[in-house]
């Protein structure tokens, strides 16, 4: 049977009424946990594993797939409306999405996130079905030195989230690096900067930092301004739906986000966040409306949201073809497979084609369901913004605190949340950008570990970093991205660039 026949057969399995109900339960639960900061899809699937033991393997895996995709959808809603990223992969969405929501364009922002996620999920799932074996080969070529080159590229592109001052941006980034050093060093098992506090052994949790800096810091800032706060939140201005122009500006970022997110999700050491950073930077470079970036550019929501959903599908590539879980959720789905005596890996496609194709088909169905579930809710969600500000921000505080406590019931974690919230407030007061701190915390350890691994394998010879073709190409792109703007500036075209930079927030 050809791949296509298998897929059709899978669709028939997934369309059975009971399986449709499992998919619906999955996407609803997934959206809910995605909305709550701290509680992620991994924990939800883990809690459901014993419950699903009595179901047939197809049904429960379909439900898990729904939760997984739903979580990616749900994370964007709170990022856009409340500036509180529900998952680390929706941090970038908050940058432009929340600005849009404050300008009364919350509807289009949510819509482009939902449709972008749908488009990306659809394309990436089809990609999973047809090119998984090729993608996985590419992913295995990536060793420590290639990952290090990818991180260097990510650092260069991250500078697009710096705002108007490179110095302030770099200060924020290095603050993130400093926080990233805290905890047990992965390569030697030794503790760094934990000052004997056991709670610091595992480092600073990314979601805690993100929720604190974005939500708590913002709340304090607004509260400090009192009644005469300048930026009045408008719930709806113009249409709740996307205009023709919104569509025209969204479809290319959706596709580009998919192309960036899918292979990065498939890489064993990739991660959904990196795809969203790269997508955001790409859109900022390519946009025809650079003046809007930092003030609510729709491209900055469309691209990263497509990228994080595409990488969710990408994660399933190594899981199904190698039995290699690359995220916590994937690890639990692996446990789910094992519960039924199935071992994902090179043999799974051959030994259990019905199940694999049933899963892929149900991902397609979950994706449709999410769109149907989320689009009508857009009108309802934006009403959140009509809540009077004192109530809204009190609600955000409660929500952020509950989410953190829910994920890790510890007093120390709550203390960190408040301390970082205060830091976020001070950084806003003194005009330092927030996002680079979180970016530094995510990318810093990845870059450090991969560099040290690469050098350990080569026994200390640094030339190894440039001798791999992939690493060399990635480093060359990074160098170009640094040098070209500098050259343009030197040739007198810098005025345009600096003007663009100055208009950023």
């Amino acid at each position, binding site marked *: 049977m050809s791949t296509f026949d298998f897929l059709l057969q899978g669709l028939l399995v997934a369309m059975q009424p009971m399986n449709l109900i499992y998919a619906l339960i999955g996407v609803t639960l997934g959206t809910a946990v995605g909305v709550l900061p701290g509680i992620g899809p991994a*924990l939800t*699937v*883990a809690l459901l594993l014993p419950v699903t033991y009595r179901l047939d393997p197809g049904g429960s895996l379909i439900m898990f797939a729904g939760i997984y995709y739903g979580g990616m959808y749900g994370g964007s809603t709170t990022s856009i409306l409340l500036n509180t990223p529900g998952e680390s992969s929706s941090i970038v969405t908050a940058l432009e999405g929340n600005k849009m929501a404050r300008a009364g364009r919350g509807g289009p922002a949510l819509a482009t996130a939902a449709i972008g996620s749908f488009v990306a999920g659809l394309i990436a799932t089809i990609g999973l079905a047809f090119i998984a074996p090729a993608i996985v080969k590419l992913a295995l070529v990536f060793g420590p030195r290639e990952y290090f080159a990818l991180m260097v590229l990510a650092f260069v592109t991250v500078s697009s989230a710096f705002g108007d001052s490179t110095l302030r941006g770099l200060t924020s980034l290095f603050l993130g690096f400093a926080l990233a050093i805290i905890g047990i060093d992965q390569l030697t098992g*030794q503790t760094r900067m934990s000052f004997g506090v056991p709670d610091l052994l595992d480092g600073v949790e990314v979601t805690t930092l993100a929720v604190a800096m974005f939500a708590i810091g913002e709340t304090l800032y607004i509260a400090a301004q009192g009644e005469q706060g300048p930026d009045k939140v408008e719930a709806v201005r113009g249409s709740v739906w996307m205009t023709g122009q919104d569509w025209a500006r969204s479809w290319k970022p959706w596709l580009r986000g998919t192309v960036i997110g899918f292979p990065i999700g498939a890489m*064993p050491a990739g991660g959904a966040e990196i795809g969203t950073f790269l997508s955001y930077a790409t859109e900022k470079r390519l946009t025809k409306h650079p003046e809007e970036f930092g003030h609510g550019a729709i491209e900055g929501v469309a691209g990263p949201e497509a990228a994080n959903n595409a990488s969710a599908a990408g994660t399933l590539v*190594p899981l199904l073809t190698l039995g290699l879980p690359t995220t*916590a959720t*994937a690890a639990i789905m692996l446990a789910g497979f094992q519960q*039924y005596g199935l071992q994902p890996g090179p*043999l799974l496609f051959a030994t259990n084609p019905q199940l694999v194709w049933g899963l892929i088909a149900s991902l397609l169905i979950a994706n449709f369901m999410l769109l149907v579930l989320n689009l009508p809710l857009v009108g309802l969600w934006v009403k959140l913004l009509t809540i009077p500000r004192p109530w809204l921000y009190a609600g955000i505080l409660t929500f952020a605190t509950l989410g953190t406590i829910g994920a890790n019931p510890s007093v120390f974690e709550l203390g960190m949340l408040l301390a970082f919230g205060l830091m976020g407030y001070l950084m806003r007061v003194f005009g330092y950008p927030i996002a680079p701190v979180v970016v530094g915390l995510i990318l810093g350890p990845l870059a450090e570990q991969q560099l040290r691994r690469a050098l350990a394998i080569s026994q200390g010879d640094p030339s190894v970093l440039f001798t791999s073709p992939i690493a060399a190409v990635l480093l060359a792109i990074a160098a170009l991205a640094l040098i070209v703007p500098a050259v343009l500036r030197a040739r007198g075209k810098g005025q345009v660039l600096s003007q663009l930079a100055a208009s950023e927030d």
Partner: protein
Amino acid sequence: MKHFLMTTFLSAALALPAFAADYTIIAPANPGGGWDQTARSMQQVMQQAGISGNVQVQNVPGAGGTIGLAQFSSQGQGNPNTLLVGGYVMVGAILTNHSPVTLRDVEPIARLTGEYEAIVVPASSPIQTMADLVAELKKNPGAVSWGGGSAGGTDHIMAGLIAKAAGVDPKAINYIAFSGGGEALAAILGAQVTAGISGYGEFESQIKSGTLRLLAVSSAERLPGVDAPTLKEAGLDIAVQNWRMVAAAPGLSAEQKAAVSADVEKLAKSPQWAEVLKTKGWQDTYLAGEAFKEQLDKDIAATETILKDIGLVQ
């Protein structure tokens, strides 16, 4: 005599709730890992086999389980309804992290499962046997890079033991720690490292499909259904198993301890548990009471020696 009978009845009546106790099992790791899976399997079996009506699993991740261990020993003090899952990796983590709380601060009940380590190379590697790998290691210890899990964990300890048994300085080994078995597996498949060490289960499907070559397993005897020599057959006197255990809180009375031990024994002897072991591919290594404590002390001493040899513990 009458009085004695009364007290017996009374204490039996008091002890009764403990037999049908609700349990909270602490998994000192993130959802998805081996300890989490052990805790959740225990939850499932305890409920199915009627050992306990209500079992909760709580994840307290971090630092090789030492964060969960510390929290358990302080907050669980004297509570007979909490259990902690742990294992061999915790022994190493306690030493490398200088954890103020050790396994002596909790009440180890029993060893439940175990997994043997496998040494593999990618199929494209010129190395065919364990003897080839040892020869390479003797020639230039730094040129042989070992890919495996976290630093100071079972995989790292294995690499150190192999070097020591081969007469190579364990400090000279070039061990590359990856976060979790998944990332290490990718690096081994991509031939980024010379050889890989991890639990046999992590590699099983790759070995069967021929993308990895299995050189040796760390069990004392050959494993049924696995076509590879033990390290002892390959001339290296090593036997290591990555075991998982369950502990109770400190400060329990003798009766409470006995009740928990009885529940754990019921779990380990139940047909449902046997079924779990089969589907997960875990070895049954049930060992309880004093025999387990003695073995635990031996393992801790041996681990401390090798971690000092590798240079992770001063």
